[in-house]
């Protein structure tokens, strides 16, 4: 609250000072002359003075000086453009004097001019140019720019830029010779949640001599670090959830085919790949025939990917897998063979190289939650998509007639058959459903990674791990296992690196299975063969 009052007060003061400044004429002939003529030191001083009351004429003039368009004739200064001379103050065209001399800008002067021009950008009408100018000043804070920043702060209307400006102001004050000002700046900067501020404070801490200020800097740094730490942790949790959703999508289909039906489908990864390639095909069709609505191709790709993979799944089930029910090890080998053939098929049709699947434009960019935590839209999309698919599958299995039949056949095939359930058909439907979900996973994965013939191979081991860890025959177990593995993986990655994290996870699963051979959620039963 106190802080707010102070800043309002400051704003009031700076508005007043600007008003005063505007009462005087912005750029006077004397000023123009002193910027253009004389010793470099004097010119720089004049330039900085003029900057305080900068208006459009001043910036035009400074630009002209920087572009070597300002000429002098005796004691008069002109802006010369296309062999015409203009008065820098009034802007009116004047007679071109006969004897014109160039002004000489040495390197130091040029540097000052550039900074001045950059600072003038703080008043540009374009928001993005203003933002860039503020960033530039933040990186290279200079106490001399303080009055300028005050003025910009009072003129700024965009809230986000205003807070950036306050930050830049504090950063500039940090270099002040006045101890109290430095204290104030150090305090103000503690409110910032930007990694750049941390750097700034650290730099100052190295050269600071006053113990009071040093202590304050330290406190501010700790405060920032705790905020940043929170952001980092949340970031890890989010990437963990996003990885978990990917695992969930990849494993959900497997949870149905393996968990409910007991079919080891090693070609599951290839069904994911087919879904991704179906998305690629839809993207191509939209690009060629419907470029106007290209951004929405993904919506059309979702059912296409589902259907393509489901149809391939039906073909596999009818032609190979149904002959192997009850022989899991043989199924494993046969489906491995299928996966080899599918991979080679895709390689023959689309080539061995990865194909490009573009994100729709609404998916690029991200949602900035904290200054050091930005959630990419495509990751958010995956998480939401996984939730939708999960809810859909859950409804299908627990609420529909088909789901009832699938559960019935899973629990007791002969009895279900006696009750009039066509078990062979239910098998096909269930397998098609599992394959279709793999297709959906492929559609989602195409948005965040490479799409190539080997896409499925990288997910097959992971998805089996999820299903095995979660426990067979349970969707809830799959969800817990996927999320748990995703988050655990990302936290381990933080301190052990990606490869070691992966190894640690695999070892963890192996040990976990020792303790609970049936996974997190075991099906309860009395069978000795379980």
């Amino acid at each position: 609250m106190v802080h707010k009052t102070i800043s309002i007060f400051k704003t009031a003061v700076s508005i007043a000072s600007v008003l005063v400044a505007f009462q005087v004429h912005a750029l006077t002939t004397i000023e123009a002359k002193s910027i253009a003529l004389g010793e470099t030191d004097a010119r720089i001083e004049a330039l900085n003075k003029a900057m305080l009351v900068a208006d459009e004429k001043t910036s035009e003039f400074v630009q002209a000086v920087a572009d070597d368009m300002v000429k002098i004739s005796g004691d008069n200064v002109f802006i010369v453009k296309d062999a015409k001379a203009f008065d820098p103050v009034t802007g009116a065209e004047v007679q071109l004097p006969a004897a014109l001399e160039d002004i000489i800008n040495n390197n130091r002067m040029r540097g000052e001019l550039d900074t001045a021009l950059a600072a003038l950008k703080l008043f540009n009408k374009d928001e993005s140019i203003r933002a860039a100018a503020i960033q530039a000043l933040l990186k290279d804070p200079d106490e001399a720019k303080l009055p300028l920043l005050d003025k910009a702060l009072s003129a700024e209307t965009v809230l986000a830029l205003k807070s950036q400006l306050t930050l830049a102001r504090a950063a500039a004050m940090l270099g002040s010779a006045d101890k109290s000002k430095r204290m104030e700046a150090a305090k103000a900067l503690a409110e910032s949640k930007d990694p750049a501020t941390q750097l700034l404070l650290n730099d100052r801490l190295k050269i600071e001599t006053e113990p009071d200020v040093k202590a304050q800097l330290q406190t501010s740094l700790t405060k920032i670090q705790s905020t940043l730490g929170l952001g980092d942790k949340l970031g890890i949790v989010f990437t963990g959830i996003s990885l978990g959703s990917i695992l969930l999508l990849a494993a959900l289909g497997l949870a149905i085919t393996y968990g409910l039906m007991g079919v080891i489908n090693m070609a599951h990864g290839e069904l994911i790949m087919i879904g991704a390639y179906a998305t690629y095909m839809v993207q191509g069709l939209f690009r060629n025939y419907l470029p106007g609505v290209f951004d929405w191709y993904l919506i059309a790709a979702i059912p296409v990917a589902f259907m393509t993979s489901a149809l391939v799944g039906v073909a596999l089930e009818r032609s190979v897998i149904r002959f192997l029910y009850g022989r899991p090890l043989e199924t494993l080998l046969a489906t491995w063979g299928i996966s080899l053939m599918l991979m080679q098929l895709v390689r023959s049709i689309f080539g061995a190289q990865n194909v490009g699947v573009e994100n729709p434009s609404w998916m690029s960019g991200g949602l900035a939650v904290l200054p050091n935590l930005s959630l990419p839209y495509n990751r958010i999309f995956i998480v939401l998509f996984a939730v939708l698919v999960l809810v859909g599958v859950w409804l299908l299995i627990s609420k529909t007639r088909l789901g009832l039949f699938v559960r019935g056949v899973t629990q007791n095939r002969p009895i279900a058959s006696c009750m009039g359930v066509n078990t062979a058909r239910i098998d096909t439907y269930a397998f098609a459903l599992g394959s279709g979900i793999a297709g959906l996973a492929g559609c989602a994965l195409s948005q965040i990674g490479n799409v190539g013939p080997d896409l499925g191979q990288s997910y097959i081991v992971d998805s089996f791990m999820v299903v095995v860890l979660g426990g067979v025959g349970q969707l809830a177990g799959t969800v817990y296992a996927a999320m748990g593995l995703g988050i655990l993986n990302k936290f381990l990655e933080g301190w052990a690196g990606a490869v070691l994290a992966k190894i640690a996870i695999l070892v963890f699963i192996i040990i976990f299975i020792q303790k609970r051979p049936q996974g997190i959620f075991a099906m309860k039963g009395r069978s000795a063969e379980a």
Partner: protein
Amino acid sequence: MSSEQLILPTPAPLLSRKGWATFLMVLIAVCLVAPLLNLLVPQSSIFHMSDFAVLLIGKIMCFAICALAMDLIWGYTGILSLGHGLFFALGGYAMGMYLMRQIGLEGNYKSELPDFMVFLDWKTLPWHWTGSASFVFQMAMVILAPGLLALVFGFFAFRSRIKGVYFSIITQALTYAAMLLFFRNETGFGGNNGFTDFKRILDIPVTSQNTRMVLFVITGAVLLGFYLFSRWLVQSKFGRVLQAIRDAETRVMFSGYNPVSYKLTIWVISAVMCGVAGALYVPQVGIINPSEMSPANSIEIAIWAAVGGRATLIGPIVGAFLVNGAKSWFTVAFPEYWLYFLGAMFIAVTLFLPQGIVGLVRKIIGKNRMEGKA
């Protein structure tokens, strides 16, 4: 071949008279004829055995040892391992470490350390390379590394009664984890590139024709030795219990046997056999890298056994030769279609040839005999 009856009151002979004759012929072919054809018959002659053939057959014999090992654990005990590629690679790496030290100062960097360590700027050998200069020590490691890993892993897995597909998938995870580990440079096994550029074995140049022939003969002898050993093993009481475990593990338990020790023993034996195969493989092909541990390689071992015929011992050896022979021909003639063929083989064998080729042949012979008798 002896008859394959399971309920025999008296132990059957190790091999029938005919079986011993065939065995001796193969032994002579590998240990005498092949060296003669390769080393003494001039290259121009039609009977000359090319170096390429020596390398190819030597390689396939190593694979056949793996297939034999797979048959013991899968065909006779009913445990499908998808991690045998790991044991193979471990044996190979143990041999490779010795071969790397034998390079001595002749590496690219003229250093006592293997080249990849110089490249990583390591100054001393890491701890696990301590005994690598000694041939005897590394040969012990060829057996101990896969053996101990199998013992520890198998003990925990079998004790908690993990079986069937669960076991298969966990072994796959194990080999996958090991592959990731060996791909890292920090592990100290040469990372991506593994070991290569070998110069000598036991101070003899490893690439010379004579050395290659010796390795070939040793590999053949080891394969035949392992075959006899396996034969003896499966015909013993131990082997009978294994088959009983395969067919009805719960009943074996109810009969008072503890399946864990049986499974663990055969699992370790099988792993060590694979390790030995790997150790013989590396000096012949001259390279070992982590891709040997990829899950695909381990599954291929299973298909060699399946194509030849599970629980027949001779079948997996035949299968290894057929599949790898086809592979070396296909990948030259139709590289595009090899994966189609391999994939189709996986499907066809599981669907139509559950007993493999040997099973098919026996069925045909049996039919003919019946008809002849009738």
